[in-house]
Structures are given as structure tokens and as C-alpha cells.
């Protein structure tokens, strides 16, 4: 089965500024991929290109299609939420449901109603009357009611409180996700998605810095807390990042010799957020 998203030498520039610099990556079906990077790293440019919202250079295939020329066709099988709630303020919730049901062959009205029923938001209300968090919930309900093969979420929980965030991610994993779907998600809150991701793509200054499945992190990366007296010796193994922790120094290694590392202390698998900090500092 071909990859769901395949990017080769994907390049996007705004004038002389290079937002994506010959980026290569693939996303396989059935995965939950976190596209993670600091502000201005090229996350949004990559998502815009994938969703057919912007022209680019290089090769890009999403669900087997070139996205920019085929956005409408692509949106029959993919859906997305851009970084903040962007539903039009004049729209009534029942109108939104009717409209999406009218134009989208894979929209399931009953599912949207069930999702909205949990939020106590009534259909006669206009989007402008809702709080920011409620707007996001409505948008999420509309999007999750679409039977999409690819769901792209750009900072989906921005403006939501901690309870709403948690229930959103629970719904995403338990009610929505199955082996036929693929989710690509960007967020600043790495800790929040850490436990649901199957793969991570770290992006910085227009380049992919880490492209790895969560399962492979343990095989490829290691963190060891080293006491001061062994620090010089451990540094000889060329860590790519280090930070002090409780009187010791945690050293981060890529493709290390695990046998040698074990001599300095307990070898740990770095968490996604630690790896992110280590790789992008």
C-alpha cells in the first residue's frame, strides 16, 4: 500500500524567505503523526501544502493526489481544522450541519449531533454567540463527523481549558481513530499529545530534524544521567545535547552504543518533549 502522504524535496518560499527547504517525509496509513516545531519552523507551510491551500515546489502526493490542483477532490477524503476556530460568525449551528451534510458525501449527521449533544450547545445559536472554546468544540464535532481517511489538526485545542482538551483527545483516540484513519497533528503542547502519537516529525527552520516512530525512539535515542566525575568520559561519546538535573548532567545521544552508555548510569528512552527540547535547542 502506498504512503498516505509522500513529500520529496518539498520546498516553499515566501519571497526570499524559505519556509520549507527540500523536505522529505512520508506518512503511512493508520498512524497518528505529530508535526512538531517552534513557531516559524514551517509547520503551517507544510500543512497548507498538504491540504492544497498553497502552491509549492517539489513532489507531494496526498492520498495519491497532487493536492493543490485537486483540493476539492482531496477534501472528500481528508478533513482539517486550521489553527484557531475559524467558523464564520454568522453561521447557525444547525445551518453548519445542514450545509456540510449537503456538500460532503462522507459527513454523518447523526455523529455530529451525538458529538454536539455532549457540549450543551443548541443548534439555533450562531457561532458569534459562543465562547472561543465552544466554537472549537463545534468545529471539532463537524470535522470528526466526517469519515475522512486523513484528518489534519493544526493546534486543535488552542483556547480550550484542560478538561475540554482531555475529553477532545479521549474522543479522538477512542471514538474516532481506527486502522482506516490517519491523523496529522501539530501542537505546541507536546506533553499533551505525547501519549497518543505513533510517529513524530520534528521540523525546524524549514527542515525535518527528526523523523521517527515512537517505538523507534528507544532504539535511536538515549538519555543518561551522568555524575560529574564521569562527565568528561561520557562526553567523549558525543552527546548532541546536555542539561543539568539534580546534581548530575543528563546527556542525550543519537544512535549510541548502548553497551558503553550503560557504564555511566541507567539508560533511558527520552520522552518526546525532552527529545524536542534536546534536538531544537
Amino acid at each position, binding site marked *: 500500500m502506498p504512503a498516505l502522504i509522500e513529500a520529496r524535496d518539498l520546498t516553499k518560499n515566501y519571497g526570499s524567505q524559505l519556509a520549507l527547504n527540500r523536505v522529505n517525509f512520508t506518512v503511512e496509513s493508520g498512524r497518528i503523526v505529530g508535526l512538531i516545531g517552534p513557531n516559524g519552523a514551517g509547520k503551517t507551510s507544510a500543512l497548507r501544502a498538504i491540504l492544497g491551500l498553497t502552491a509549492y515546489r517539489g513532489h507531494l502526493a496526498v492520498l495519491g493526489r497532487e493536492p*493543490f490542483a485537486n*483540493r*476539492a477532490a482531496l*477534501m472528500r477524503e481528508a478533513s482539517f*481544522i486550521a489553527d*484557531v476556530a*475559524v467558523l*464564520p460568525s454568522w453561521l447557525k449551528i444547525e445551518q453548519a450541519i445542514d450545509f456540510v451534510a*449537503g456538500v460532503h458525501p462522507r459527513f454523518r449527521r447523526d455523529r455530529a449531533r451525538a458529538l454536539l449533544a455532549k457540549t450543551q450547545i443548541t443548534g439555533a445559536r450562531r457561532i458569534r454567540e459562543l465562547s472561543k472554546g465552544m466554537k472549537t468544540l463545534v468545529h471539532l464535532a463537524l470535522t470528526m463527523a466526517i469519515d475522512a481517511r486523513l484528518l489534519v489538526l493544526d493546534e486543535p485545542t488552542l483556547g480550550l481549558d484542560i478538561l475540554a482538551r482531555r475529553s477532545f483527545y479521549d474522543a479522538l483516540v477512542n471514538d474516532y481513530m481506527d486502522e482506516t484513519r490517519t491523523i496529522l497533528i501539530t501542537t505546541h503542547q507536546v506533553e499533551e499529545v505525547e501519549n497518543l502519537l505513533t510517529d513524530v516529525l520534528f521540523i525546524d527552520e524549514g527542515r525535518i530534524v527528526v523523523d521517527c516512530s515512537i517505538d523507534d525512539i528507544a532504539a535511536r535515542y538515549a538519555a543518561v544521567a551522568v555524575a560529574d566525575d564521569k562527565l568528561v568520559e561520557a562526553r567523549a561519546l558525543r552527546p548532541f545535547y546536555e542539561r543539568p538535573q539534580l546534581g548530575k548532567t543528563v546527556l542525550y545521544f543519537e544512535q549510541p552504543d548502548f553497551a558503553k552508555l550503560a557504564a555511566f548510569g541507567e539508560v533511558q528512552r527520552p520522552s518526546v518533549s525532552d527529545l524536542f527540547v534536546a534536538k531544537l535547542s
Partner: protein
Amino acid sequence: MHTYMWLVRREFWENRAIWIVPAVIGAVLTIAALFGRIDLGAAISAEQQRMIAPTVLLAYGFTFFAVMSIYSSWYLLECLYTDRKDRSVLFWKSLPITDAATVLTKLFTGVIAIPLVYFLAADVSTLLMAFIVSMRAHAYFGSVLWQPELWLQLHALWLYVIVTTALWFLPLTGWLLLVSAWAKRAVVLWLVLPPLALYGVEHWFFGTHFVGNQLTERALGYLPRAFYDHSNPAAWSTTVIGTDTITAPSSVWRLLNPIGFVSSPATWVGVLVGAAMIYGAIQLRLRRAET
């Protein structure tokens, strides 16, 4: 087709003024018919009554048409701009709707749907007015308003005007859509300044007035092409009421000049220019996801 139906409904949801404004105008005109003065200050003959009747029926239509032209232009100027400004364009673009379908729906709404709504409102108001005038001044004037032939003429005129103005003013429509798809802010400035700048540059550097002449011709060229003027005496009749000389169209059928309109090259040059600009608006819509 199904998708287009939803897209047009969407326009009516968003722009409730499409039907609220004509409803208000209709209400005001109906109140005017109920309580306004309806005699002409002089005795008129039955023949004169018959002559003025079409003009009386047309008067309401003109009011609606004037407002409709302004509203429709404003609608076209805003339609591709507001959803980029509030970023809801990202929601619309997350649905399986092509950008061409979006732009063509706005075009259809601006030049066909909105005029038809106003046409309906004008029709209902005129009907109410005719009814009220009949009740208030049956002997004086009312009876001449109920000629089926007159109403047929009225409807033919409306439909003729909707179709011919849509074609003749397509360059204006195209320009409005282009600006709407292009501007990151200040749509009105983008609407006005480029033609003005072109006019100025041409005037200062070449001393010619091609741009100005084209714009004037487009603005003033519609009526002489689509209608017969006083040079066709059969289309007009004149009478004296009191101290006023009144000239009124004798029949709508003699006023319309569809052959002259369709055979004028300027009509089709305009359609081509307008179509090119609409194509440009679609291309911009593809690329501009935000303001």
C-alpha cells in the same frame, strides 16, 4: 448541481440583507401608496390615464432597481474578502467545493439571484400599490392599472434588464470580484485607485484618454444599446397635463432593442473582459487562503 444549491443558500444565510432590504423598501412604498397623495393636481382624460399607467407601474421598479444596483455591487466587492478577513475561508476550503464553484456561485448570486429577489419584491409591491390605488381612486385612476398586457410588459422589462445589465456590466462585476479576491484590506481603495491611477498615468504620459473613454462608454453606453431613445418616435408619446409636458414610453415592446444590444461588438468585448477578470478571481481564490 446539488452543491450549487447549498452554496447559494449559504449566501442567503450570510447576507440576510439580500431579502431584508427589498422587504423594507416594499413596506415603505406600500405605506406611501396607502397614505400618499395620488391625484396629479389636474384633471386628466381617460386617454392620458392609459398613457401614464405604464410609467406609474414602472416607478416602483426603478426604485428597487436603483437600490439593487448599489447593494449587488457592494455584495460582489465584499463576497470573497470577508471570509478571508475573518479566516473562515479555511473552513470553507476544508470542504469538497472547488474554488471555481465558490466564485461562480458568488457571481450568480450577485448578478442573477439578488436581482430576481428585488424583482419579486418590486412585483409584490407594485401589485399592492395598484390594488391600493384602485381602492382609493377607482374612478380617477385605478382602473387603467389592471391591464394584463401592461403587467406582461413590466415583467418582460425586468427580465430583459436583468439579462442585459448582467452582460453589459460584466467587466464591472469581474473587477469587483477580482478586487474582492485580491485585497488584503481597504477593498474600496483597491476598487477605485487602480483605474484612477491608470487614467492619470495615461493622461500625464501620453496625453490620451483611452481608459477614461472606455469607463465612460461602459457607464453610459448601456441605455442607448439596450433601448430605443426618443429617436424612435413610435416608442414614446407626449401629452400635456396642466402646465407639464409629459413624455412616457408608449409600449415597453417598442422600447426594447435586443437586436441592437446583441449585435453591438462592445457588448461582447465587455463579456470577454469580464470573463477574463472572473477567471483571474478564481485563480486568486485558489492561492489566497488568508488576508
